């Protein structure tokens, strides 16, 4: 703990990130450039999220990390340990207890509350990037609010597949102005972007920070005749029986057997502790 500055980063770096966060909150959905630092983990492992967490963290915080909903994957465990060591903060796996939650590609099932901060790890922050490779062009498109191309992409989905096939990183319109990539969360999570919590998005390699303040209007793009649908796998969790949570498919053997379980490990554990049992669960 004494070998590092509080939360690893030096103070000038934190000030630079903090100024970017404030501008991001003032212009919801706009991607603020920032001077991303080398972190002691490779790009693609959540360096953007880690830098945001380091900049917002206080010694009194309780920190939670999830990777695709799970608290116990390698990425989540190592980031949680990183801040335990460099910031000395308390850590938890319970969504309700946490004050800062860093997430890779999920929003917790348990509704977030006012005062909580959700930090997203973002690989490609630019929603238009796969449609237009040039940063100069996409920046111009955002400045002119020129988002026709995104609607063409969703329309092509419909003409090819009969429905909007985009299942994750589903683009949203923030406060009627900026089209934003909510990071690769399943579109099941999109309605939760309207939240009492502060949501911060960090892309380390791409050097962008953006934010959604509490209760900001966030609308998933769609068409009148093809409205947005927050879809998930049919069925219920095999362990806890929940039919309203986002499910992961787990292959059980070579014969093709499979089961569906909650992607949010804390949500599932809490339900099982309360006595809910699924088809393949064991009463605890």
């Amino acid at each position, binding site marked *: 703990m004494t070998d590092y500055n509080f939360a690893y980063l030096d103070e000038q770096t934190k000030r630079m990130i903090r*100024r970017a966060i404030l501008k*991001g*909150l003032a212009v*919801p959905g706009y991607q603020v450039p920032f001077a991303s630092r080398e972190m002691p983990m490779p790009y693609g492992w959540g360096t953007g999220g880690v830098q945001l967490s380091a900049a917002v963290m206080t*010694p009194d915080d309780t920190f939670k990390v999830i990777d695709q909903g799970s608290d116990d994957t390698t990425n989540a465990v190592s980031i949680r340990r990183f801040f335990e060591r460099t910031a000395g903060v308390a850590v938890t796996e319970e969504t309700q207890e946490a004050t800062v939650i860093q997430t890779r590609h999920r929003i917790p099932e348990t509704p977030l509350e006012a005062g909580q901060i959700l930090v997203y790890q973002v690989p490609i922050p630019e929603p238009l990037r796969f449609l237009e490779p040039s940063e100069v062009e996409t920046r*111009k498109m955002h400045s002119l609010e020129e988002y026709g191309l995104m609607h063409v992409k969703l329309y092509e989905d419909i003409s090819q597949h009969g429905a909007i096939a985009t299942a994750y990183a589903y683009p949203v319109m923030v406060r009627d102005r*900026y089209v934003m990539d909510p990071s690769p969360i399943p579109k099941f999570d999109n309605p939760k972007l309207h939240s009492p919590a*502060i949501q911060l998005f960090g892309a380390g390699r791409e050097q962008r920070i953006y934010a959604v303040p509490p209760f900001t209007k966030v609308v998933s793009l769609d068409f009148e005749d093809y409205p947005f649908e927050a879809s998930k796998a049919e069925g219920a969790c095999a362990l806890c029986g929940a039919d309203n949570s986002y499910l992961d498919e787990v292959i059980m053997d070579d014969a093709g057997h499979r089961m569906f379980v909650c992607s949010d490990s804390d949500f599932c554990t809490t339900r099982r502790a309360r006595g809910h049992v699924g088809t393949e669960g064991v009463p605890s």
Partner: protein
Amino acid sequence: MQAQMLEGGFAEAPRDAAIAFRAAMRAMAMPGAIETLTGAAGPAPLSPAASVLLLTLCDPDTPIHLAWAHDTQDVQEWITFHTGAPFVAADQAMFALGSWEALAPHQDYAIGTAEYPDRAATLIVEMPALAAQGACLSGPGIETEAQLTVPDIAFSQVNARLYPLGVDMFLTHGNRVAALPRSTQVR
């Protein structure tokens, strides 16, 4: 004067700045919410809240404009010693500090560009009073409506119409702070 310049900084910078930033961030994320900032106190007429904001957000990368009563040698020396921020004219400033009247003309501050709306000034406005009453606020960060004393309703309405351009404001009084980002509708 020497001693005054050296005093009033954070006792433990990483910890104090982290706690102060959390309060400043909550204020900016929830316009109308009044937060408390403690841990630093610059020379008069700097309020404790404005002092804490300067130490939390400013460094040699952030040119500051000091307006009228705040443009004293004491304040300049204190800011220089604790942050190293350079002092500039209003149109060059990333941060501007002063009372609302002193900060005039208010259209001089950077409002960002269409492609980089983040390159806009942040005004730290020292208020004669700050309470959850007066103007009615709505927009991002506010569930329905919030009340707040704001320095100039007409200016904030013009500023909001420039969205996504415009200046963002911290309003300070004593050790309390609230924020008025450009995204907030004021009436």
